[in-house]
């Protein structure tokens, strides 16, 4: 069998997913027996013209989300060349943490980043411009899109591997499936079909709690379920497959595994919170301290792909 021709592209992501691929360590050598990586900007010296001139690909693995025109263009190009497109990591599958910027407009975001953050010194409020005049000629920068989007919003995705970054076990499973050439059904998730709670070994006693507090408020009990300690843990609303690694390290699940058989991960979590919080009294806002920033808490990785997915100001002319 000839080796699979694989391209790996880094869209709007942090680079962690590329490092995640390297995390496979020596198993990568095994994998490389069956695949040939022909494009991987983070590890190889390649230019986009090399990608354009490539004949067809077997697999394109995309990490990061669609945040600018370039991301969109390259992902569409990869889709037109590749037999199989893999959305790799939370950003690619659900839009990732940068999706939280969808609460405001693009102008709001640029203003925050270039003018308002305490560490920014930009008295003239210089913003990135699309055209840069260099002595050698004009350079064009890709425009930032109004909204951050997951990969599936611009190209059909065959396999989804969520996680921030995806755990090694799932990366290896992805390569096994790819090299075995098993055609799977549409929207095939590489992960578990059960929630993170299913893989979590913490003790649950079905008790209700009076409040949801922020992490620093409580001494953490390493044996008991976080929710039952009154701490927000996204386990019930999150796809497993990670082995509940964070929870094992005494950190509540943040939800990077993505939604599980629902259209909205945050809504699913609200459902779970409704059951675990006390029902004796109407719950007060003060008791929901962990939800001071509800979008940040409940949609940390998936706001771009959630039902509403943006603040109402977006597209409405800014603040």
């Amino acid at each position: 069998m000839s080796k699979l021709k694989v391209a790996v592209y880094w869209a709007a992501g942090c680079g962690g997913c590329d490092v995640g691929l390297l995390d496979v360590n020596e198993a990568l050598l095994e994998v490389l027996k069956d695949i040939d990586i022909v494009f991987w900007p983070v590890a190889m010296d390649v230019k986009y013209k090399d990608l354009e001139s490539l004949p067809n690909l077997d697999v394109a693995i995309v990490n990061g989300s669609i945040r600018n025109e370039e991301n969109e263009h390259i992902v569409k190009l990869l889709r037109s060349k590749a037999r199989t497109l893999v959305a790799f990591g939370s950003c690619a599958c659900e839009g990732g943490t940068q999706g939280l910027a969808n609460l405001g407009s693009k102008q709001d975001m640029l203003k925050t980043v270039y003018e308002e953050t305490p560490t920014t010194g930009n008295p003239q409020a210089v913003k990135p411009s699309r055209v840069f005049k260099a002595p050698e000629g004009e350079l064009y920068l890709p425009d930032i899109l109004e909204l951050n989007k997951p990969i599936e919003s611009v190209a059909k995705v065959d396999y989804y591997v969520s996680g921030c970054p995806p755990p090694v076990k799932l990366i290896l499973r992805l390569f096994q499936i790819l090299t075995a050439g098993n055609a799977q059904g549409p929207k095939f998730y590489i992960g578990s079909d059960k929630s993170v709670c299913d893989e979590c070994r913490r003790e649950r006693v079905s008790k209700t709690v009076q409040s949801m507090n922020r992490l620093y408020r409580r001494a953490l009990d390493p044996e008991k379920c976080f929710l039952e300690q009154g701490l927000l843990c996204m386990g019930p609303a999150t796809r497993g497959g990670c082995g509940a690694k964070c929870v094992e390290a005494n950190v509540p699940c943040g939800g990077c595994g993505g939604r599980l058989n629902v259209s909205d991960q945050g809504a699913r979590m609200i459902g779970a919170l409704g059951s675990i919080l006390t029902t004796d009294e109407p719950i007060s806002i003060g008791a929901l301290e962990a939800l001071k920033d509800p979008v940040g808490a409940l949609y940390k990785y998936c706001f771009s792909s959630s039902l509403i997915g943006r603040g109402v100001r977006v597209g409405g002319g800014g603040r």
Partner: protein
Amino acid sequence: MSEFEPNIVCFACNWCTYAGADMAGTSKFQYPPNLKIVRVMCTGRVNPEFVLEALKKGADGVFIGGCHPPSDCHYVNGNLKARNRVQILKLLLTQLGVEPERLRLEWISASEGEEFSRKVREFVEELKRLGPNPLKESSTELSELE
């Protein structure tokens, strides 16, 4: 210009509010026709997704009606769980820029037909004051943008 008529999705529990709405009908207590009632077995069955989906698809308000606390709920405490969820949903809506008043939870029993029609009238008035769902407006502008 004709007056804005809000479009309301109502989730009514089978045992109390749905029967209450029926009672309003049979006792001829009028209420405005802005409401589309979806019968659910219990307000505890109202998945928060239903609320978000209704608002996303352009409902101007969502009205959830269930049995009186603490103990009228046919399923022990489904109504109280719904109360928790509504509280969190309101926090979420506020952050999204949607007025939390667009989501309303009321306890209306099977015998309270008049109460049902009064609560619906109140909600319609409130939504008329608030105007159309802002998600609806920005989504049209957004599709032009994209």
